[in-house]
């Protein structure tokens, strides 16, 4: 039972990861670790950190984000990601869909939780 719930949760997280990554980039460019930190603090999307990078590579391949290396003050180069115009459009579409979906789910679940109290 506990395993099944953990498995279900892992699948849900995986499904939301792409939207969440795109959403973190809405306000400006970030590098991988910043995206991970943002996800840790503002969402419940604790996934294996290494999975973020292949998703970013796919988004870049699809033309939704672009990446640039920058020699930082940290002593090692960082690869910054930012949304392309197509990426901004896609993020907005996904955000609207997500919002609608979540509203409907909440409307479905809320009465049940209230009753179970």
């Amino acid at each position, binding site marked *: 039972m506990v395993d099944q719930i953990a498995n279900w949760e892992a699948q849900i997280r995986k499904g939301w990861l792409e939207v969440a990554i795109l959403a973190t980039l809405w306000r400006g460019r970030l*590098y*991988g*670790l910043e995206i991970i930190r943002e996800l840790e603090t503002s969402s419940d999307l604790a996934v*294996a*950190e*290494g*999975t973020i*990078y*292949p*998703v970013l*590579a*796919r988004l870049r*391949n*699809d*033309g*939704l984000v672009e990446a640039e290396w920058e020699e930082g003050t*940290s*002593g*090692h*180069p*960082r*690869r910054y990601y930012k949304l392309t115009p*197509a990426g901004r*459009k*896609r993020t*907005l*579409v996904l955000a*609207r*869909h997500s919002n*609608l979906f979540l509203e409907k789910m909440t409307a479905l679940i809320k009465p049940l939780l209230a009753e179970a109290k």
Partner: protein
Amino acid sequence: MTNPIDSASQERIDAYLKRLRHALRALPPDEIAEIVREIRGHIVERAEATDSLSEAALTRILAALGNPEDIASLYQSRALVARARASTSPLLILMTTIRWAGMSLVGFVACLFGVLGYVFGLSFLASPILKMLYPDRVGLWVGPNYWNLSLGALSAAERARDHATEVLGWWLVPIGLVAGPLTLILTTLILRWALRFAFPKTSVRPGPTDGSSQ
């Protein structure tokens, strides 16, 4: 305040990245270099952010990142599909479909179709050669007692048992030479089409809630 990485930790980081590099070996070298550079940056920055980089702390950092082989496989699925979409190599397309088979039922069906298509194609292609080597045994055998066409080699004993007669004769050679490549090409094109259909190159499709004019 950053924390310098001692040589023992550096060795462990290098070993992790070596495993990653090895697992990524199917990708182009410049792509591997970029991935490794990025992951190294991640580890170093995490390490420098800890108060003191103990063995346990580094273990936690690497565990949070995940298995290098798992990360590599995520990169490769994507890269494989991207290359297969543009390729005409049956081997690459079949390899990608086999990977797809592990991801979904549709992929499994596509993979089954692909394997069958290539087996048929190769059999057609092999039959003219076999016909020339064993003219009496190879052909399209039709038996009166059953509804079975056997494209292949039947021994004299089997022929007698099934009352099978050969209906194609030497026509098998040109038919095999045409049907073989045709089946192989068609299978490849259909698999590639299925891959393109299942993994579309992302295009922004306006959704029902999209568009500010609404």
